[in-house]
């Protein structure tokens, strides 16, 4: 029941969005040079913090753009929304 700010469309209801876990996981530039362990980190291992978390969201029933959200997983307070490729904002309130 969040109101989430899509960086392109503005504030919309949560029902328009889908969430996809941790953000800022870079896709390997050259997949062939990664060790199994590095691949494991890329694909499977995720932080699961209580508190501030950067996460990926998709405006699935809207502009269909992907973006990132800085959110507190404990209080569900949303600190910021920003476009992919943009630097992550500082932890906590911006």
């Amino acid at each position, binding site marked *: *029941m*969040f*109101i989430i700010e899509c960086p392109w469309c503005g504030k919309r209801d949560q029902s328009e969005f*889908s969430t*996809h876990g941790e953000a800022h996981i870079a*896709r390997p530039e*050259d*997949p*062939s040079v*990664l060790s*199994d362990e590095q*691949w494991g980190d*890329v*694909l499977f291992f995720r932080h699961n913090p209580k508190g501030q978390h950067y996460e*990926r969201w*998709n405006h*699935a029933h809207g502009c*269909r*753009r*992907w973006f990132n959200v800085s959110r507190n997983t*404990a*209080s*569900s307070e*949303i600190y910021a929304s920003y476009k*992919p*490729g943009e630097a992550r904002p500082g932890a906590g309130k911006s």
Partner: protein
Amino acid sequence: MKQPNRLEHGGRIDRDRAIEMQFDGQTLSAFEGDTLASAMLANGLKIVARGFKYHRPRGVFSAGVEEPNALVHLRSGARHEPNARATVVEAYDGLQSTGQNAWPGVRFDISAVNQLLAPFIGAGFYYKTFMGPVKGTAFWMFCEKFIRRAAGMGRAQTVADPDEYEKVNAFCDVLVIGGGPAGLAAAIAAGQCGARVILLEQDACLGGSMLSLPVGGESDACLKAMEATLKGMDNVRILKRTTVFGAYDQDVYGAVERVWDHVEVPPAHQPRQRYWQIRTKQAVMATGAIERPLVFANNDRPGVMLANAVRSYVNRYAVLPGKKIVLATNNDSAYAVAADLVRAGAEVSLLDARVSVPAELFKPLEALGVQLYPGYGILAAKGSRGVSGAKIVLLDENGCARGPSKTIRCDLIAVSGGWTPVVHLWSQRGQKLQFDEQSASFLPLKSASSTLKTAGSANACGDLNQALLQGEVAGQEAAKAVTGVVGVQVNVPRLKEAIYADDWARDLLMIWSVTREDGSTDGKAFVDVQHDVALSDIDLAHREGFVSVEHLKRYTTTGMATDQGKLSNINALARMAQLQALSIPKVGTTTFRPPYTPIAIGAIAGREQGIHFRPTRLTPVHDWHVDNAAVMIEAGAWKRPWYYPEGGETINQAYVREAAHVRKHVGVVDASTLGKIAVQGPDAAEFLNRVYVNAWKKLKIGRLRYGVMLRDDGIVLDDGATARLGENDYFMTTTTANAAKILGYLEHLLQTAWTDLKVHVTSVSDQYAAFAVAGPSARDLLDAVCSGADLSNEALPNNQFVKATIAGVPVRINRMSYSGELAYEVYVASGYAHAVWKNLFKAGASFDIKPYGTESMGALRIEKGHVAGPEIDGRTTLGDLGLAGFASRVKPFSGSVLRHREKLDMASRPTLVGLEIDGDTGGMAGSLIYDQRAQQMGEEQGFLTSTTYSPALKKYISLALLRDGHERFGESVDIVNHVGDTVQTAKVVSPHFFDPEGARQNA
């Protein structure tokens, strides 16, 4: 019927509007403004329910949502409702209700023999009886059905509810929860500050605790003034009969409005209940408080009630439930009750656990003739089917009997153990509670930044004027936080004078349980009356080592009934604290979770039920399928033709005929549900090259190619054909089930990883219909119906497409085959699909054209060994499915590295094979495959994925994933269906059962 307990005068009932209701076949006379419970009391009904476990007789206990006893079945037939609290059921003429959890009835209940078993069914009874002596669960399973029948609450209805429910979203600046004095003051103040206000009240009337005060007094004048003020305010919306059941993140509140619950049948087109989802900026929690009971032997007898509930019945409903009343308290709030009861004509004895009571409290009562017993408590209630007396004793500082007891004859025992503020919403928001010694209650630990303010009794606020003031301040602060405007003058009505005694738990003595000196009681002393948890159960749990409050709750089940411990919480904690020699806050409290009071699932579902549960997707030619008697099947959100029965055919007859027909003549299947994605831009080829395992850069315009995608971890994701329509224009198809998933996946790659690629992906699934035309006559049919294209084998070989027209409509014809026959896919804009389809059938008559459904489509592809959803199951690799040959060895693609993980490259992995099943019954998908030498023992070696009867082979066949599959062609294996408990045998063969060379599709 006479109403023996109805007072001659007073009350907030409409004596001009007499009504009649039914309870257990008995007629109850009542007035408008009554509740079912007040009518029961007015008519002298004592036993109205039976206990949960022991089936002891129970009467009305409270006057509000906290009611633990008087749960009834409401209405009958499809509108039947279980566990309705009679105390909040508004009376209406013709209301039908019956007792529950009792047979044959609440007044005489066979299961009351459970009381004799009481020593054996204490705390932890389930665990001890069913998890120790007999191994396994068989004993439990045997006993369960008897226990389930014996214990329990109301009986649910199994037919559909005929009434409508709806959902509403609302927004406001300040949400005021509770329409009592503090809430009304808050709404007025916030409204006068210019905020948009919504005020919610669970009762049918505004006023809260003021409704329980004497009629016509100073409080009524104040209430009237407040209601008049609110009436003139356009920016305050008032919803009565509306309970806020949950508080959620970002200041969203869930509420249910009982729009038409106070009538038998809602008016036409009106909802019975309405679910409100309210988003606010600030909220004021003016939710009041609930009086606590006292614990003593037989404190569940009909005729034991909460003191202030009795006051409500006297003042609000003009019902005096007893003539000789023993009132027991540990705080000040029973004194005003005593005065009101005497004025209503009762004889009252007042027991106060405190030895010294301030003179200003007891002096006025002495003048009224109330007999006072300072330092006394009730050891036991006398009487079995109703209170006939109270055994009273002097108490020591632990609540133990000191000296001999004596008995006072009475017909009603009223108890007050202080008050429990209703802080559920505060707790639901994850905000902290702290224990307040003065009121012996958990109170909101306020913080300035909170968007939830508290006021009134929810704050343990003492008197009425103070509550009004708190409400005013909370409303003002909330409005200020929204509007930013400070110093707005507000004008909230007040009481002229503070004429009412302090209503709150001032000077409370923390004694709630009364026992003998050795801690025992004269009979069951209930902590949780609704769940039949006695003091002895808490004591037992303590002796057995349960220390944590959360463990105690679950072990004894205290606070776990439908009332969720509204009455029992503090009394259970206090007993634990006493046993552990700790303070109550050290013991801690459990967490409140929504809903505050039970709500109907129907209200939450609203209109999202039946066919409206989710959208249904129909292909552009859906109507034709229906008109031609297709049996439809749900495929995700889609409805697709499953088969087209002719002359009473069964599904098995129909699909076998359809599949055979395609191999002999020509058939058409509606493939419009395929996912279709336009992949466009100068880097489209590069993009496809990265996501598909095979090479795409050299695909010429006019060609198409089958492609497979992997997940990054090397597992097969999806497959489909992609055509190159133009220089920078590709048309991708995905499987029906994965259409949305693949689009999202491609978008994610383009938007986050490969932002340098100039490519757009757009879903065009709904824009195009697709029909597969398959069979030896397919080309002849299309030749007859198409214009402007050469369809000859030379001009249009497999994996190429042409543009043509059918009846003037532009179409694209892909030559490709899923069925293994000479086949084409016709793509047409959705709006023209029906016309094109009809033209195919018109021209097809001379070629014996038939439609075929998904069942025969499946049979045809299984005969060819083509993989689909059951094989691409999120666990299989290219190698498993025999698709490794497609993968490029030179270019990287998604999944190209991890598909070679050690375990994914193991030769012994289950691989795709065909099975020819012996005998004349088909296999069941999911059945396990065993080595025949192992005699169905040990680990299975694989499983069946897709099974069918093959009309071409005239036998039952199946695709399967089998360990070392490719090396086992010719071997005989066992197929075991553990669900149906059947064993079959089959021969392992190549998955390409039919025409493995592909001569037919290349014809």
